[in-house]
């Protein structure tokens, strides 16, 4: 008997989930679900997404129910998790890593009435799939400027995760602005091929430090590179990535890029409630409040700090674009002419280094 009840409840849930959208012009109660690639306690990427999720709960109180799953591997396993979430009555599902792109679209095809929101991706194969991203390269420009001014060895490093446009545009932006601030600067890029592996991230930082690098930026999720830099007693500085990483303020962290997903999450769930929800491709930056520059500490000289803040404000005001020509590609062929700014399409499909960066992007 019990078992039959369970099945009946499951079927009811399924029916609700599938039928929920039919009268979707506004909803009284929304269940928002989040899929995380790492643990919430990573202190970086996933932590910030979870802050966004909590902001949704805060904003709407008991009109919204949030659910989440941590440590979901990218790839086939993600599809299983997404299907499970869809069946459990989620109305909107945020998938918060690039590698969920295909799984998100595949599951979205099966549940046309559930809204899917994929972070940092570009595939919107179904009307119920939206993508959202933040212009992290704007923050990278500010970091690059600080790095170029602060390096004493003229060697700066970058711990990269995977060779995807998102990461490559960050490297390019970082390098271009470091070079502008200091023409002698050399950039070493280390590909870790992971988003989250503290030990490996620390090893990558160590490898860079052993090579004489004294400013490290990272595009992985944990605070391990800062922990490694802290072992050098101030000789090496770094930046907080995704989260402020303020606990390293009195150590190597001189500034940070903070991902602030809260405004977007609150807005989208709100739209679902009042019936104004539409498929979009959102890409906000410093101006929209999605990318924040964490406090620049006193380790940075006052004039450098002022320059960095001026750049931040110019980007926010729309008077400066981090990719403004003339810029050549690594092989010397022209990309942007004098005064031309990069079109979004070029950035979203970026698969080349700009001129001056040494090394190849792994395939």
């Amino acid at each position: 008997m019990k078992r039959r009840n369970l099945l009946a409840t499951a079927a009811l849930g399924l029916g609700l989930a599938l039928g929920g959208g039919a009268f979707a012009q506004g909803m009284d109660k929304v269940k928002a679900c989040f899929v995380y690639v790492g643990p919430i306690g990573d202190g970086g990427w996933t932590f910030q997404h979870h802050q966004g999720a909590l902001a949704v709960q805060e904003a709407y109180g008991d009109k919204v129910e949030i659910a989440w799953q941590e440590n979901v591997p990218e790839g086939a396993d993600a599809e299983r998790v997404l299907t499970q979430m869809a069946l459990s009555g989620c109305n909107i599902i945020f998938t918060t890593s690039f590698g969920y792109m295909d799984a998100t679209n595949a599951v979205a095809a099966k549940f046309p009435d559930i809204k899917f929101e994929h972070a940092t991706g570009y595939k919107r194969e179904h009307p119920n799939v939206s993508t959202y991203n933040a212009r992290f390269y704007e923050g990278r420009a500010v970091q690059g400027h600080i790095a170029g001014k602060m390096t004493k060895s003229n060697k700066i490093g970058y711990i990269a995760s995977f060779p995807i446009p998102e990461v490559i545009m960050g490297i390019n932006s970082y390098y271009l602005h470091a070079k502008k601030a200091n023409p002698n600067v050399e950039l070493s890029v280390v590909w870790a091929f992971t988003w989250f592996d503290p030990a490996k991230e620390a090893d990558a930082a160590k490898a860079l430090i052993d090579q004489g690098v004294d400013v490290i930026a990272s595009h992985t999720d944990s605070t391990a590179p800062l922990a490694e830099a802290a072992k050098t007693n101030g000789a090496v500085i770094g930046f907080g990535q995704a989260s402020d990483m303020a606990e390293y303020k009195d150590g190597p962290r001189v500034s940070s890029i903070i991902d602030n997903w809260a405004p977007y999450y609150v807005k989208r769930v709100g739209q679902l409630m009042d019936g104004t929800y539409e498929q979009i491709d959102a890409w906000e930056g410093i101006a929209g409040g999605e990318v924040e520059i964490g406090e620049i500490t006193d380790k940075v000289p006052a004039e450098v700090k002022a320059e960095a803040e001026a750049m931040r404000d110019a980007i926010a005001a729309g008077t400066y674009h981090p990719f403004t020509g003339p810029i050549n590609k690594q092989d010397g062929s022209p990309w942007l002419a004098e005064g031309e700014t990069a079109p979004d399409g070029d950035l979203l499909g970026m698969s080349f280094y700009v001129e001056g960066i040494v090394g190849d992007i792994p395939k």
Partner: protein
Amino acid sequence: MFGSIDPALLLAALMVNSVPIMLAATGELVTEKAGVLNLGVEGMMIMGAMCGFATAVVTGSPLLGFLGGALGALALSLVFGVLTQLLLTNQVATGLALTLFGLGLSSLIGQGYVGIKPPATGKLDLGPLAEIPFLGRALFAHDWMVYVSILLVAGVWWMLTHSRAGLILRAVGESHEAAHALGYKVTRIRFLAILFGGAMAGLGGAYISLVRVPQWTDGITAGAGWIALAIVVFASWRPWRVLAGAYLFGGVTVLQLNLQAAGSAIPVQYLSMAPYLITILVLVIMSSGRGKAALNAPACLGQNFHASR
């Protein structure tokens, strides 16, 4: 080809990098030599990382931290021991469950420890040895745990091959029926081996959270336990080969990162693959059956024992 990589620094990084997997693999080797397959190494390591970190932060002493890490993981292995040795559950399934349990429990306990820095583990002052050019920087400028881990491998090797206790342990792993018939307490011996394996995995985990990445983060071991399991097989259950295997696995990681930092053109994927390819190769050679290597796997590995007679 190697650009500007300093071999002394590379060797130094390799030694540090290999400590966690070496410790965990040595512990697992003893457990498997007694005939018990514990796939929960990853779970025990992360419990060690958590408990070690917490103990070190609370007491302010790295030494007590390592002790706490060993004890935390030992407690988890005790659960495995009770389940598999007393309740005779399936070892593979129990081991996998242990990993999941360890990951979750460590995350729960660790909530309050995110963003704290542990007390620094001191470098061992080897005096004149550290002054030797090249070798001094490569081999004699590490924290004391690096040397302790090598001593532990040596100790396990001596125990297994040169002591009566090691002989009994191996007998239990090769044929628990025969060992039982001779009057040895199979269950008790296996229990002790499981606890030893747990304590070693805990030390390895604590090394990650106290020395290599001095911080606590959820999921900090990130698969090191599985590599340790692979190393045991790679080493065909011999302690010194565990040391070699750990240096190989750890060394390749360090080398490929350094090559990248130095701007070498070698594709990183090949180097990352290398240790796993070698492991597969070793497995193939072993399972071909004729070789001496195949004889090394404990005959009763993974089988439960119940004294029915």
